[in-house]
């Protein structure tokens, strides 16, 4: 057991470092830039093969290993680079097309997505279908060589700057819910598409609602057979849950310790208070546990084997933990913990921000409850919930208010 690269990995890391040294499109610290800069950086990466390390060469990838992908990610993280707005395209939509797309679709879409010329978003969730994605209602009806789509999608990241979307619709409500779905690629500039920002509980807007009104989609943009949309959607979903768990934390145990050092409680510095120390210890051990789980996954990747199921606990642990840790940091500030003024509160009120953001993390990409079901069912092999919606026509299912 050690934490070293294998000789091959070390060689690859050196190669990546050298390339980044020469080519990274670094931006000044603590600044954010727009989509234009993101596209420019993506083009540079794609030309060198680093935009899709694990993709086969025929699709413009590097034909590399997952471990090489991890190494590249670690090295890239040392630079301040433009934001990556291509993950839905390169991480979910294109891998799905590689499996289910026609040769024409592959040659039309993969290259522009890889080079950042076209940004993709995902039109899956609906107000009435979140955890139960197969319960979507957005209708697709055949009209000659086209389909006419009407409905309402929600929680779309980047909807306002995306060029294309992957879309799952209900084409036949007379069939059981998983059977009447059809999957499409849709140009976001198509008439009848409206994108609205969603205001979150924090007041910020990271997501969109997308309304589709008589949106006309040519049948050649269908992926998979009509009625086979669930199968296609599953390919996409497999990639999503791993993506959401990795949303980074700005503040964590180190910052909490600093706050505990600075805070005075009634009997002295908070860091000397046994109740505070106990909580810090708990969260530290959790942090380390998650980190070492990642190490175990990396070790598996390094050996060329598929990581075990232990990685599925990451989001189930980290999201509620983030909420609790933020709440406790605020508590150490006593009455002042309620203040959100960045000039006054330590770490520019990042704990308060976290406390307002964490409820969303506990829901997005699988709620705490769904994730525990997944651990119970896929990892521990316990039976699934009793289903009352299999074999029932979608239009006959109860829907509530």
């Amino acid at each position, binding site marked *: 057991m050690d934490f070293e690269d294998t000789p091959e990995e070390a060689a690859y890391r050196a190669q990546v470092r050298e390339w980044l040294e020469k080519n990274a499109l670094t931006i000044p610290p603590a600044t954010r830039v727009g989509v234009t800069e993101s596209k420019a950086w993506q083009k540079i990466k794609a030309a060198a093969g680093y935009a899709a390390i694990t993709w086969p060469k025929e699709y413009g990838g590097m034909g590399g290993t997952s471990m090489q992908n991890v190494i590249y990610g670690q090295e890239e993280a040392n630079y301040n680079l433009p934001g990556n707005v291509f993950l839905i395209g390169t991480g979910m939509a294109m891998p799905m097309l590689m499996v289910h797309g026609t040769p024409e679709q592959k040659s039309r879409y993969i290259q522009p997505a890889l080079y950042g010329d076209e940004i993709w978003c995902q039109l899956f969730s609906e107000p009435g279908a979140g955890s139960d994605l197969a319960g979507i209602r957005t209708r697709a009806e055949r009209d000659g060589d086209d389909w006419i789509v009407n409905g309402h999608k929600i929680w779309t990241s980047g909807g306002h700057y995306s060029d294309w979307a992957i879309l799952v619709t209900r084409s036949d409500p007379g069939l059981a819910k998983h059977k009447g779905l059809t999957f499409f690629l849709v140009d976001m500039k198509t008439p009848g598409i409206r994108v609205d920002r969603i*205001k979150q509980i924090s007041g910020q807007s990271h997501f969109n609602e997308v309304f589709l009104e008589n949106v006309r989609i040519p049948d050649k943009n269908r992926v998979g057979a009509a009625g086979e949309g669930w199968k296609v959607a599953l390919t996409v979903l497999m990639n999503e849950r791993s993506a959401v768990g990795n949303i980074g934390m700005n503040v964590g145990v180190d910052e909490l310790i600093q706050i505990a050092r600075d805070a005075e409680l009634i009997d002295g510095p908070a860091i000397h208070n046994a109740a505070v120390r106990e909580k810090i210890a708990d969260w530290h051990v959790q942090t380390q546990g998650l980190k070492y789980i990642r190490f175990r996954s990396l070790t598996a990747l390094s050996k060329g084997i598929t990581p075990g199921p232990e990685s599925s606990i990451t989001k189930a642990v980290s999201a509620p933990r983030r909420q609790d840790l933020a709440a406790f940091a605020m508590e150490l500030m006593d009455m002042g913990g309620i203040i959100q003024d960045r000039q006054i509160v330590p770490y520019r009120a990042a704990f308060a921000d976290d406390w307002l953001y964490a409820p969303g993390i506990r829901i997005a990409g699988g709620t705490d409850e769904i994730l525990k079901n997944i651990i119970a069912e896929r990892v521990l092999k316990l039976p699934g919930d009793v289903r009352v919606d299999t074999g029932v026509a979608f239009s006959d299912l109860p829907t509530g208010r």
Partner: protein
Amino acid sequence: MNFDFSDDQKLLKDQAQRFLNDKSSLKVVRRILDTDETHASEVWKGIVELGWTGTTIPEAYGGIGLGHLELCMIAEELGRSLAPVPFSSSVYLATEALLLAGSEAQKQKYMPPLAAGEMIGTLALSESTQAATPRTMKVSFDGGKVKGVKMPVPDGDVANFAVVAVKTGSGTDEKSVSLAIVDLTGPGVTRAPLRTLDPTRNLSNVTFDNAPGELLGAQGGGWAIVQKVLDHAAVLVAFEQVGGADACLNMAKEYALNRYAFGRPIASFQAIKHKLADMYIKNELARSNSYYGAWALSTGAPDLAAAAAGCRVAATEAFNFAAKENIQTHGGMGFTWEFDCHLYYRRAKWLSLSLGSHLSWKDKLVSELEKRNAA
């Protein structure tokens, strides 16, 4: 045994609920959230007309001379409705401080306008983003003048006067703390609203630059009075928390019964049922503790400090849990500004921090138990 509120008191509660439903809906709360208004002045006016501001003020001072039990009933409904008004600052903090420590002249001067809603008071204790203690407090009182910064001061931008915790000695013990009444509209006072996690209740940064003040209670007796005022307020705030927690449970229940996933109401999944059962259990434990707090407050029982800390600990736990798990039950919709869940999430935090942290109240409770156990 009669461990319950009387029919008259329950009638008052029903009236309060009707009034607040009618005049202080969540639309009103949102208006305060979305604008620069410090509070809903029309709701406040209605509250004053109903006489709630004078609930515990004796008739001789212009109040209606009811007791703390009646005030608890009102508090529960204020908590349920999230009413954006400076009630807790003026009634639970300032009025209680004057009732506990005011001289006859001070009572004559402040009580009638407090009861009539012509004046709004508050308590200024905290000075920074850490707990105010005799060791860490800096605001001074010398030659009748207050100097220093207090923040966050609840309803500091709304109040006419504040009871300010000040240092009157160089020591770091409890005897170095006194209380001074300061006119917040007078000379030497600058106020600025603070950006906080719950914009539906005002919190302010108040700077005193040799602002004139008069002692409330004896010099050096301030810390002891503050502790008593906080005990009284803890019971009343616990009722607000119980009301808020109850509202969250009802929201979560309604949503879970009407939201369908996998062909059934999500309320039929055990993960959700047990979550709501946990909310119910915490809420009932908080309610029962709060009843005892109400009894201790209304009778001035020797056990008041422990009773107050007990209901504060239980109610803080209940409301914080109910507010966050209410969002979770609502799923993605609960994370939107449009749904009302976050109004409760924010207020739960405001209430749980506004009288000092959960940890500090637990510590205080055990100190009381130690005294009793030693006796």
